[in-house]
């Protein structure tokens, strides 16, 4: 056991100190977090107040008033207050806390930071005879202050009343400066659109307010009816992604560590160190030590990514979407799937002389790893299907599939989970047992890698 642990500790050190591991496994999540933080920080930086004029050429004379109203600072402030009210009603408590921690004192304050100061837009009504070419030139003028032209809106003559004989209406053209804040541009578009609609309603003898009511159907949240009572469905997209996330957690840790196991085995074989090691430890001790070492490496990967996921979910108050027990089962399923794949990869590593030769042998192993990746969608949509049930019982894919089922909206009964665990551990035992035999023979053989039939013979004879 002592020698096994010594082999394991070297394996851990030799893996986690490689550039590939540090960059690929540890630095990547750090970079992701850093970029998220930088992007959000950048968003929280207050944008400077936009000041300037919006020129409007309105031959109908029915739109300009609405636009002026819409773009007035008072209207801006009112709209934001209404938005805040809506956000406040739906915002998870933790996000509110986080937002306030970012330096903002109140939510409207935070919104101000996020959206920038209310722009100061001066509307300039152009005469119908105005020269469009000249007015456009004003968009190029280099000047600051209230008379700096930001946009030119040209309402089509038939925008409010259609020409006789055609049911369609005209619209408008919008000319803007080369660099205009996208939010301001969007506000101008909304202002013009709303104003044209209101003018059209008015022209048709309708009350614009009434039309607003007629066209407003809010987006509703569905209510789940469960044995425990009714509950509002929350974060549906996230909930749908959770099964995939859990499967991916195991996938990434098993994939990373078992690949490393194969690589270090090939290195030991090709650099001819294997025989030196075998004079000090038995093949079983060597393989056990290597697998144990990579088990710890995989566990590190699993913990890093799981920790990141949990922190992210905690930040958005979505932790309630995960049952605490699922974390326990996650580790159990990691255990069985890791040992199965690690043993197979160790056997492959022992059979070949270089990575290139391993490609054909690891293909079937990789294919089984890919099955749950391809099938997670149908499985998580219908976790009770015969295919889902069967795959959640067949090692080595059972661990992945069972996790998808467990984290879906209709988890399987507990007896199925435990049956899958027992079958998975049985599969892992069989994989380790047969791989140990291949490992022992393969490690000392050089030359042409064996085919599957030869490997089967080794299992039978060793």
């Amino acid at each position: 056991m002592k020698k096994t642990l010594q082999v394991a500790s070297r394996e851990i050190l030799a893996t986690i100190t490689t550039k590939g591991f540090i960059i690929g496994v540890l630095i990547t999540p750090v970079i992701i977090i850093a970029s998220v933080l930088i992007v959000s920080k950048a968003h929280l930086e207050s944008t400077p107040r936009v000041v300037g004029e919006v020129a409007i050429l309105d031959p109908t004379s029915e739109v300009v008033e609405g636009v002026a109203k819409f773009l007035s600072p008072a209207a801006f402030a009112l709209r934001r207050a209404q938005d805040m009210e809506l956000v406040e009603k739906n915002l998870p408590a933790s996000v509110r806390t986080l937002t306030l921690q970012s330096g903002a004192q109140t939510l409207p304050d935070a919104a101000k930071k996020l959206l920038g100061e209310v722009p100061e837009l001066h509307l300039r009504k152009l005469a119908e005879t105005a020269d469009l070419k000249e007015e456009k030139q004003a968009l190029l003028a280099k000047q600051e202050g209230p008379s700096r032209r930001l946009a030119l809106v040209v309402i089509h003559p038939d925008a409010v009343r259609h020409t006789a004989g055609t049911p369609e209406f005209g619209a408008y053209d919008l000319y803007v400066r080369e660099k205009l804040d996208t939010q301001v541009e969007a506000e101008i578009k909304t202002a013009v659109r709303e104003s044209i609609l209101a003018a059209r309603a008015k022209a048709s003898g309708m009350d614009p307010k009434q039309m607003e009511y007629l066209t407003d159907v809010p987006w509703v949240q569905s209510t789940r009816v469960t044995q425990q009572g009714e509950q509002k469905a929350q974060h549906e997209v996230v909930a749908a992604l959770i099964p995939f996330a859990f499967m991916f957690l195991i996938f990434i840790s098993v994939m990373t560590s078992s690949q490393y196991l194969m690589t270090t085995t090939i290195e030991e074989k090709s650099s001819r160190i294997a025989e030196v090691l075998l004079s000090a430890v038995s093949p079983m001790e060597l393989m056990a030590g290597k697998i144990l070492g990579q088990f710890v490496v995989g566990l590190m990967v699993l913990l890093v990514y799981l920790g990141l996921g949990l922190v992210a979910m905690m930040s958005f108050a979505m932790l309630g979407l995960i049952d605490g027990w699922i974390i326990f089962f996650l580790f159990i399923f990691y255990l069985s799937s890791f040992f199965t794949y690690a043993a197979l990869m160790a056997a492959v590593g022992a059979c070949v002389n270089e990575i290139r030769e391993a490609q054909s042998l690891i293909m079937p192993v990789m294919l089984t790893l890919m099955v749950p990746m391809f099938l997670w969608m149908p499985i998580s949509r219908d976790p009770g299907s015969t295919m889902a049930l069967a795959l959640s019982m067949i090692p080595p894919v059972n661990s992945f599939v069972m996790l998808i089922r467990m984290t879906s909206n209709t988890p399987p009964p507990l007896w199925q989970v435990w049956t899958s665990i027992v079958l998975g551990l049985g599969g892992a035992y069989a994989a380790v047992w047969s791989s140990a035999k291949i490992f022992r023979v393969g490690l000392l053989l050089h030359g042409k890698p064996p085919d599957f039939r030869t490997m089967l013979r080794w299992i039978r004879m060793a």
Partner: protein
Amino acid sequence: MQSAVVLKGVTKTFGDKHAVEALDLEIPQGSLCGFIGPNGAGKTTTIRMIMSILFPDQGEITVLDHSSALEAKDRIGYLPEERGLYRKMKVGAFLRYLGRLKGVASARMKSQIPNWLARLDLEGVEGKRCEDLSKGMQQKVQLIATLLSEPELLILDEPFTGLDPVSTRSLRALLVEEQQRGTTILFSTHMMAEAELLCDRVVMIHQGRKVLDQSIAGIRAQYDPRSVLFEPLDPSADMARFQALPSISRIERHNDAYELRLHEGADLARAMRDIAATVAPAMLQVERPSLEDIFVQIVTAGAREGADEAEIRGQAAGANGGRS
């Protein structure tokens, strides 16, 4: 004398090939035993079976009173024919790792590793990566890894291959020293002259079968010298006069000297007297048969009818490398 290694009827086959066949072997404790034979004779397979890296199809192996080397691994130092290092590992870390696997205490390694490195002219390499060393230096590092645990039994597979003459000489001295410390040493080689120079016992193997297992003294006693090197005092002396001597079968000229081959069973002392009396000698020397000669003699005698001696000699001299 107790035996460090005992093999009884050991057989190993790979597919149709009999690598080792019914091999009986005893290596007395404290001996320095050469395991010789041409490439492909079965030396490495036998050594791997002794080390329990391979397992025999038939027969029993006892190593240091255990039925398997696995039970006595920490007491055995093994240098395989195919040497290896962790290329990216530093020399010091590599030696400490192998030392730990062999159960050597960390405190002892702290003093031992620099001592060994200094002794094999490897000062200052402890912090270097193994891949940065020359091939010869790497071989020395591997040798240190083998000796670090002060093993009771030292098994070296082709230890002289790839060494320069200076390193060969220092390895030879090292092996003698280890033997004097009480270590039993078994080393395989296809360079028979090396074994002749160093061993007190020789085991010869050919095509998986043992063909000779004797002490060097015993071999010398058993295999009579059959030729005499002769250099006449007078270079113009008539060498044809030797043909009249009954003990001499053939005369061959080698530059200024002559090799006088004796008839089988000829009395050496009498032949020497007769030679000296026939032509005045500047040099007269008994030429002992080399292990290679003996090997060829044994194998030729046992070989199928019409076996080609030159071919067997070629096998014995065998090229470097390849697994036996």
